[in-house]
């Protein structure tokens, strides 16, 4: 076969093949576009309109007993890898000592429910101490979304910041960018992982798992668009603070009676 013949046959093959491929793609894109068209009209969950919700969470710091049930529930509900102690939500213990130095410790919970601390502070040395539950703040102005080079993370219409694990390339930019340390690289999928406000529950009218199991109702989940929601009431009756307000991330996790030492 000489060069001319090769090119000729190659061109014929390519054109006919592209015709076949085009036909196939036409049919698949047609079905894809109809499904996407139908999903824009019909939401992922029947009767759910994301545009009419905007979610946030309230944390009543004085109610948290640091039992870690929320962490355990989140781990189970979202199938978060247990090793090496990754979590989408976690509880920090703040100890402000008499000399005003601050010890921050993340409580670790075992499967049976026992709690472990890295550091034990002598009780006589404590000025004040409390627990702070933390999670992704689902910022209205999220730095993690800005830095993502492939657009894999984004804010949904109803205010949750979620990650497209099929698009994420695992570059860890977002993990670095998050000022709250709410993201981690999932060792199983090798993609960025974070709290989704239990999006799969919320769209079906349920509470996030951590809110569901909190024994003292220290976590309040609700819709900021609804005046009657528990969260809006929580914001009305409490003195509210958010974490790192100076960063202009506009967090949507609201803390009641937050101590000034909390970072």
């Amino acid at each position, binding site marked *: 076969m000489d060069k001319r013949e090769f090119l000729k046959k190659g061109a014929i093959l390519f054109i006919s093949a592209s015709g076949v491929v085009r036909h196939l793609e036409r049919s698949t894109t047609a079905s894809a576009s109809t499904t996407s068209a139908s999903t824009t009209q019909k939401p992922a969950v029947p009767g759910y309109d*994301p545009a009419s919700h905007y979610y946030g969470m309230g944390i009543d710091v004085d109610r948290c*007993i640091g039992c870690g049930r929320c962490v355990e529930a989140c781990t189970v*509900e979202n199938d978060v890898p247990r090793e090496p102690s990754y979590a989408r939500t976690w509880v920090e213990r703040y100890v402000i000592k008499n000399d005003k130095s601050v010890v921050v410790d993340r409580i670790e919970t075992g499967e049976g429910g026992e709690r472990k601390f890295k550091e034990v502070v002598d009780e006589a040395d404590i000025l004040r101490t409390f627990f702070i539950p933390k999670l992704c703040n689902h910022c209205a102005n999220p730095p993690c979304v800005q830095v993502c080079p492939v657009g894999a993370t984004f804010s949904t219409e109803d205010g949750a910041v979620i990650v497209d694990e099929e698009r994420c390339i695992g570059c860890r930019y977002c993990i670095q960018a998050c000022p709250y340390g709410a993201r981690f690289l999932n060792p199983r999928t090798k993609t960025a992982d974070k709290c989704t406000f239990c999006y799969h529950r919320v769209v*079906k009218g349920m509470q996030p798992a951590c809110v*569901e*199991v909190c024994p003292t109702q220290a976590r309040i989940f609700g819709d900021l668009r609804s005046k009657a929601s528990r969260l809006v009431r929580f914001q009305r009756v409490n003195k509210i603070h958010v974490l790192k307000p100076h960063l202009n991330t506009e967090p949507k996790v609201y803390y009641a009676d937050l101590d000034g030492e909390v970072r």
Partner: protein
Amino acid sequence: MSSLDPDAAGKAKAIFGKVPEQLRRLAVVAVVLIVAIVALRYYIIPPSLIESRLHRQSTVERETGKTIKFASAGICGDCHDDVSKKKSAGFHKTLSCESCHGPALKHTEDPDVKPFAPRERKFCPACHAYDPSRPTGFPQINPVLHNPLKPCITCHNPHDPEPPRIPRECAACHAGLARIKAVSPHALIECTTCHTVPERHKQSPQSVRPTKPQTREFCGQCHGKESKRVDAPKVDLSTHGERYLCWQCHYPHLPGRT
């Protein structure tokens, strides 16, 4: 441009004839490339990869499609109405059933799949072990000292826990007195024989005190000359220490045999 358009070649043969052979071949390659790129961009790559609206939509769909494991509060009461009614009136009313029993959606679909039931002692201290960081007033115990090795549920009903148990035995607080009385001739007499204990004494022991016998005749029921009790020493109440109540001289928890 005309050299790139294959249709023009057929129509204007004269002009086309002047186009050098190399250019014509190049045109074929260019056309093939353009077709390939267009096909790749618009037909082969799925639109969900290019359009962010679509890929976000697919992410949301994937996210909403994830399996739920916690059935959420309220649903348990549909079958377990007795337990949930009991719980809703007690101190654990703010707890969701799944706070302790773990994810139970599978159980709601198939009742044979039993949810977790914590019965070991190590479970309750997750919330109730003493921790200085816990809010004041939250019921806490020292798991090392509080009835060691006993599972919590032997004394406490987790569906209707009681606040720190009001002791039934006086000895729970008055252990010293109980020890003394136990070896005294009064060992078999109940505390309540001599003391009337108001219910509120158990809550505020200092301000609400039990009564003490206020008459000499009270002791006289056993120790008076007229008493029929054979095992009690007898005195003549009319002559014996008449100005005083008996317990002002005799310690009733350990009365001496004089």
